[in-house]
C-alpha cells in the first residue's frame, strides 16, 4: 500500500485503526516529492519545520505561496517578495496548525496569482502531472499538481477568477471556491480583495468537505468575514439528487467550447438526470460580459493592493544610484520595475488606467455595474434551481508556452469560473472525464447559492459515487 496515494479520509481511518501513523504518511509523501517533483516542479520550497504530530487531522498538506505561514518564506512567486519570512500565520494557517495539519512545503503559483497557467512564477513553471508538456492551470497550479501527483494529500489554494477550479479541472482533482466571506482572508496576500477566497484542492469530495470543516468560520481580523454558523460539511455527503433542480445555462455551451469537454459535461448531465435530478435550461444573458467586467474590477483592485510593494519595509529593495532629492521615488520605481514580472506590470497598469481621472466612469464604475447585472442573472436562476452546472474550463490543459504571449486568450480560459467570483457564490470543480485525444482530465463546475456549499457537495458527491473519474491517476513513474 502506498500511503502517499491515499485520500485524507482513508489515511484518517488507518491512523484510527493503528494500521499506519501520521509520521509514516508524512514520510511517504516526502519520499514521493523527492521522487517526482524534479519532473512536476510543484514545490518552491519544503517546510522549515517537521510536524509535531499532534491533533485530529495530521494530514500532509501543501500551502500556496500566498498564504502567510509563520517562519516560512512566502513570496507570491515574485522576485519582489524574495526573502520575506512571514512573521505571522494567516487565519487559515492557524486553523490548519491547530487541527494537526502536517505542512509539507510551499507550492508554486502564477506571480501574485495573475495567470491561468502557473507560467508567470519567478521560480519557473509547474508542469501538469498528466502530461509534462502541458500547464497545470493556474494560478493555484502548484496546489493542483501536487495533489494530482500524490505529492500532497490535499492542498490550499486561492481563487479570484477561477484559480482553484481551473487547475483542479486541468489536473483531474476536486477544487472548491467557498462563498465570499466563508473563509478568512486574513494573511492571504491580496490580489482583488472583493473577489479573493481561499479554498481546498483535494482528491475527492469527502476530503473537500473535511478540509472545509477545518478552514471555514468567522474571523474578526477580516472585515469581510461573515459571521454565519459553519455546518458539518460531511453531513452533506448524501448519495441522492432526486428532485434537485440543476440549471444549464445555454450561454455556457456556445462557441469556443471544446467538443470533448462538451461531451463529457453532457454525459455528466445525463447521468444526474438518470439519478433523478431535474434538468432545467436557463439563461445567464450577461455572462458573456463577465471576463471584460472582471478584468476591470480585478485589475483596479490589484493595482491598489500591490501599491504596498515598494521596497520600503520588506522583500526586495533596489537602491537607487543617485542621492538626489527623488531618491525615495527612484527607489520605489527601480524596486517595482525589477521586482515585478511582465504580467504583473501589465495588470497593475490596466488597473491604474481603469481608475485614472477621466476613465473611472467609463471603465471601473461600468465594470461594477455589469457585475451587478451578472449577479442579478444568477440570483434570478437560483430562484428556481439548486445548482447551476457548466464546464469548468472551455478546454483541457494547454501546452506550456501556448498562450503566454497572448494575454487575452489566457484570460478567456476563465470564462466559466469568473461569474461565481463576481457574484460571491460558491463553486466546485469535479473530474468528469478524460479527453480521448490527449488523455487529459476534464472538469465540470457546479455553482450554488451563497453559503450553500452543502448543496454543491451533495450533488458532486452523488456524481462521484456513481462514476470512477476521481480514481484515475496520472502515470509519472
Amino acid at each position, binding site marked *: 500500500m502506498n500511503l502517499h496515494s491515499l485520500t485524507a479520509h482513508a489515511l484518517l481511518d488507518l491512523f484510527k485503526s493503528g494500521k499506519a501513523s501520521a509520521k509514516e504518511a508524512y514520510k511517504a509523501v516526502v519520499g514521493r516529492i523527492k521522487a517526482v517533483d524534479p519532473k512536476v516542479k510543484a514545490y518552491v520550497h519544503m517546510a522549515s519545520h517537521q510536524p509535531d504530530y499532534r491533533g485530529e487531522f495530521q494530514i500532509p498538506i501543501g500551502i500556496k505561496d500566498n498564504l502567510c505561514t509563520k517562519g516560512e518564506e512566502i513570496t507570491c512567486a515574485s522576485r519582489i517578495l524574495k526573502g520575506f*519570512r512571514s*512573521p505571522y500565520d494567516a487565519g487559515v494557517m492557524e486553523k490548519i496548525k491547530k487541527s494537526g495539519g502536517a505542512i509539507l512545503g510551499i507550492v508554486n503559483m502564477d506571480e501574485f496569482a495573475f495567470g491561468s497557467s502557473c507560467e508567470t512564477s519567478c521560480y519557473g513553471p509547474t508542469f501538469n502531472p498528466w502530461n509534462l508538456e502541458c500547464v497545470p492551470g493556474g494560478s493555484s497550479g502548484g496546489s493542483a499538481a501536487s495533489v494530482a501527483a500524490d505529492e500532497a494529500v490535499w492542498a490550499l489554494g486561492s481563487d479570484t477568477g477561477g484559480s482553484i477550479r481551473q487547475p483542479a479541472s486541468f489536473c483531474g482533482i476536486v477544487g472548491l471556491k467557498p462563498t*465570499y466571506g466563508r473563509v478568512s482572508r486574513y494573511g492571504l496576500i491580496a490580489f482583488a480583495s*472583493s473577489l479573493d477566497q481561499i479554498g481546498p484542492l483535494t482528491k475527492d469530495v469527502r476530503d473537500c468537505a473535511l478540509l472545509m470543516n477545518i478552514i471555514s468560520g468567522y474571523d*474578526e481580523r477580516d*472585515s*469581510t468575514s*461573515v459571521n454565519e454558523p459553519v455546518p458539518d460539511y460531511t453531513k452533506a455527503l448524501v448519495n441522492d439528487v432526486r428532485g434537485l433542480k440543476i440549471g444549464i445555462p445555454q450561454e455556457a455551451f456556445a462557441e469556443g467550447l471544446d467538443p470533448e469537454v462538451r461531451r463529457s459535461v453532457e454525459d455528466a448531465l445525463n447521468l444526474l438526470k438518470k439519478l433523478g435530478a431535474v434538468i432545467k435550461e436557463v439563461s445567464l444573458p*450577461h455572462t458573456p*460580459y463577465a*471576463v*471584460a*467586467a472582471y*478584468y*476591470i474590477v480585478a485589475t483596479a483592485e490589484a*493595482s491598489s493592493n500591490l501599491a504596498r510593494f*515598494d*521596497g*520600503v519595509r*520588506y*522583500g526586495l*529593495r533596489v*537602491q537607487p544610484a543617485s*542621492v538626489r*532629492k527623488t*531618491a*525615495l*521615488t527612484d*527607489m520605489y*520605481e*527601480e524596486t*517595482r*520595475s525589477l521586482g515585478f514580472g*511582465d504580467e504583473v*506590470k*501589465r495588470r*497593475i*497598469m*490596466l488597473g*491604474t*488606467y481603469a481608475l*485614472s481621472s477621466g476613465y473611472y466612469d*467609463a*471603465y471601473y*464604475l*461600468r*465594470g*461594477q*455595474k*455589469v*457585475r*451587478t*447585472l451578472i*449577479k442579478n442573472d444568477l440570483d434570478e436562476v437560483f430562484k428556481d434551481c439548486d445548482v447551476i452546472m457548466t464546464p469548468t474550463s472551455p478546454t483541457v490543459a494547454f501546452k506550456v508556452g501556448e498562450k503566454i504571449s497572448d*494575454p*487575452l486568450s489566457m*484570460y478567456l480560459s476563465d470564462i466559466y469560473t469568473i461569474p461565481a467570483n*463576481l457574484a*460571491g457564490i460558491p463553486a466546485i470543480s469535479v473530474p468528469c472525464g478524460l479527453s480521448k485525444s490527449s488523455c487529459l482530465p476534464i472538469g465540470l463546475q457546479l455553482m450554488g447559492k*451563497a453559503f450553500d456549499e452543502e448543496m454543491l457537495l451533495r450533488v458532486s458527491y452523488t456524481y462521484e459515487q456513481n462514476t470512477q473519474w476521481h480514481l484515475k491517476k496520472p502515470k509519472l513513474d
Partner: protein
Amino acid sequence: MPISKEDVKYIAALARIDVPEDKLEGMTKSLRCIVQYVEQLQKLDVDNVKPTSHAVPVGNVLRPDVVKPSLTNQEALAIAVEAKDGCFKVPLVIE
C-alpha cells in the same frame, strides 16, 4: 481612442513602474488589445444599475476597542530591508 505609447508612459509613471523603450511597443500593444476587448461593456445599458463593490452585503464592521497582543517592534523589524533606531530606514526624502 486607442491607448498610445504616451498613455502607457503616463500610466507607468502613476504606477511607479519603469517601462523601458524597448518594451514600450509590446506593452502598448497588449494593453490596447485588452482595452479593446473590454470596450464591449459600452454596449450594455447600465443607466439605472447600481454598482456592486462587494457581492456579500456587509455594512460598517466594528469591533470593541480592546488592546490585544500583536507583533512586537522587534518581530516587525526582523523582516525589514534596513532598520535603524526601531524604525524602517528609507533613502533620503527631504534634504
